[in-house]
């Protein structure tokens, strides 16, 4: 089954047509990479999937997005965002909250836990899942701002998966991290895809090749090519894709 499908998706910012008729099918429990040069619209596309784009008043969406067969536009955006977690390019745990509270936030807001004990258990589970538990278990109540960039990003992953979403969106999650931290995140992606579907946006073809099962190449708002990662990388059908993969395009 497909976790997410988009059908003839168009996105406009005011008069700018930034996503032009994109059709995607993202299979369940896979890692799906969206790659392309900066400014191609990949972050915009990603933000439309959990309806986060609607925070921006100028953005208009046409076409359909389906989550496990059901149109997200027929769902409450709050539910959509609960079922589709997201991790951003800049690690953004709330600096005024403790590590524990950051992970617990989504659970509390959505009233997903009934007791303090249950909350503690899920927070621990999420931190373990995101390979952060050992590093923070003794300072759960210190502010999140005390963590390193890589730790913050894993905290954001913990915060997202604590809600047990079916899909996790990752917007260039390693772009602002050092190589060691970046590798930890990539290893985490392998772990996480056992339980959920991951859609990751990256400007680095190398990263897409390393982590993804499927890859889509987006250029100037258009979907140029999509398919199994090894097929695309070994045998691209479009000239543009080949140019991009061989580094002859920005």
């Amino acid at each position, binding site marked *: 089954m497909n976790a997410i499908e988009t059908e003839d998706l168009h996105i406009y910012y005011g008069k700018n047509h930034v996503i032009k008729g994109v059709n995607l099918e993202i299979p369940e429990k896979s890692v799906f990479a969206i790659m392309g040069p900066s400014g191609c619209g990949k972050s915009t596309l990603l933000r439309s999937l959990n309806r986060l784009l609607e*925070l921006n008043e100028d953005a208009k969406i046409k076409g359909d997005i389906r989550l496990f067969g059901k149109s997200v536009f027929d769902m409450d955006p*709050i*539910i959509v965002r609960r079922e589709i977690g997201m991790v951003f390019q*800049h690690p953004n745990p709330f600096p005024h909250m403790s590590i524990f509270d950051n992970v617990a*936030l989504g659970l509390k807001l959505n009233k997903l836990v009934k007791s303090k004990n249950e909350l503690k258990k899920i927070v621990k589970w999420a931190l373990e899942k995101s390979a952060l538990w050992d590093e923070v278990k003794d300072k759960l109540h210190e502010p999140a701002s005390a963590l390193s960039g890589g730790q913050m990003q894993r905290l954001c992953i913990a915060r997202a998966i604590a809600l047990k979403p079916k899909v996790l969106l990752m917007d260039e999650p390693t772009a602002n991290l050092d190589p060691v931290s970046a590798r930890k995140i990539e290893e985490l992606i392998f772990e996480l895809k056992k339980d959920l579907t991951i859609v990751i946006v990256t400007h680095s073809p190398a990263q897409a090749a390393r982590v993804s099962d499927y890859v889509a190449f987006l250029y100037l708002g258009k979907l140029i090519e999509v398919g199994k990662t090894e097929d695309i990388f070994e045998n691209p059908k479009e000239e543009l894709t080949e140019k991009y993969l061989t580094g002859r395009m920005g």
Partner: protein
Amino acid sequence: MVRMDKFKTFLAPFCGLVFGLFILMLIVYLTASLPIFEREGLAIYTTNVWKASENPQKEFYGVLAAIYGSIYTSVLAVLIALPLSISFAVFVIDYAPKRLKEPLMVATDIMAGLPTIIYGIWGAFVLVPILKEYVMMPLYEHFSFIPLFSFRPVTGYSYLSAGVLLGIMVTPFASAIIREAYRSIPYIYREGVYALGATRYEATKILLGYIKPAIVAGILLAFGRAIGETVAVSLVIGNVFNINPSLFAPGYTISSLIANQFGNAYIYKYMVPALFAAGLSLFIIGLIVNLAGLMYLRRFKYAR
């Protein structure tokens, strides 16, 4: 070779002049109030007496009522300003229709700069009668057993009138500080909280937590403004030496005491020092509150 920075030596005296003025001001307040401290000690601040007399032997002054009134009215002002200024800042940045945002901000900026005497005349001739008729009388008639409402509002000039007027005056000021802080929250935090499935109410609550130091700063600086305000308050407070818990009772504030009494104070031997002592207390309260406010603001700006 050490090169003298001529430019620096040319400019420094002007900074020195500003500092000099400020220090001179402090010295003037200390020396001018000295006679009353020598005569009464701290009783000038701890008693509520106002005995003016041609005979210096019989003079005695205690400005406790004014200090009480200043704090009472400023606290009221801040209690009014807090919900208004936060709501305004949040609404205008996040939720107001686009076309309304700029006009709303212009309106509050006008309010922040409006000559205070205009608030004063409106307060005395328009606001006080409205408050007396529609707020004080009904509350007094039905709830006078509550100490807060126990004073019969005869004229309407009262702590409440001054507090409400001050609240209206300082709200735009507090709101400007909170607004700028709220606007400065990086977009990634907004996205982050909505991505967790928060409603607008929940998201706002969390984002307000993020700018808490700026809110504290806004409130402290608003308190500082309120406590220093003079003419508007002195036209609605009633100017009576009074220490009363009731909102509807008339009273004094430090600044309105000075405004009212200083004109004829030179006739008496100790009234001028007494008023300078009152001014000194305002000087110090204002300095502490404003410094604390600026500190919180700086903490917010540089910590993030």
